[in-house]
């Protein structure tokens, strides 16, 4: 699964470049994300603006990031499209993650 990674201040931005995060790409996404968190990144912003569809496996990966960081860190999501927002709503996970419309807005809120 293609991912773009960029450190902006103390925030790690991960941008999945695939249109779908499902059972096919989820294991690799999880492995890389947990590796980056293991390197000490405490604030993680996942920019989903290129993603059209996330299934339950993909959601599980986002939850695994949250659990890996625990109360010491933050996982925020931005750029959610219709179906991605819908699946977060159906699973009530929209209350679990910090959600932002755009990456710059999220960075302003998370930085510092």
């Amino acid at each position, binding site marked *: 699964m293609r991912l773009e990674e960029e450190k902006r201040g103390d925030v790690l931005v991960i941008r999945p470049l695939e249109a*779908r995060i*499902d*059972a*096919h790409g989820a294991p690799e996404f999880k492995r890389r994300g947990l590796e980056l968190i293991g390197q000490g990144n405490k604030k993680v912003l996942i920019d989903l603006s290129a993603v059209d*569809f996330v*299934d*339950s*496996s993909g*959601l*599980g*990966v986002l*939850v*695994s990031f*949250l*659990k890996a*960081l*625990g*109360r010491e860190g933050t996982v925020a999501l931005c750029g959610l499209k*219709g*179906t991605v927002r*819908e*699946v977060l709503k*159906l*699973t*009530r*996970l929209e*209350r*679990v993650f910090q959600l932002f419309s755009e990456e710059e807005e999220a960075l302003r809120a998370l930085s510092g």
Partner: protein
Amino acid sequence: MRHKLRMVMSASMEDVRLCTLALRGVCLGLGMGEDEVRTVELAVFEGLSNIVRHAYCFDSSRKVKVELEVTEEFCEVTLIDEGDEFDPRQIPPLSVDHRDPGSLPEGGMGVHIMREAMDEIDYRREGGRNLLRLRKYRRGQQ
């Protein structure tokens, strides 16, 4: 208006993806709204994904039949496989405590998505086959 379509797909995640995309296109082409199609797509993807993973254990030589029926009143998708028995209704409801990240589930959300996305879920085991019927009433038609 009553439209019916039958498809047969291989039990692979690639076919789950393609079949779901095909259903999306057909439903939109029949005049269903983007919001309605989105929820049906999510539920069908999870239903098919469960069959590939649990009923057929990724054996792509096995087949899944997918039947779509769209009327002015509802959109119904029936998934039929000959794999191991898997009754999604037996999966307990998802429990999410958003204040406690440690309690969040990393799996088991697929069945919950189906339940929440659709208005009716009916499962039956018949002659060695699993039949999972997912129905969504069209907006304003229920």
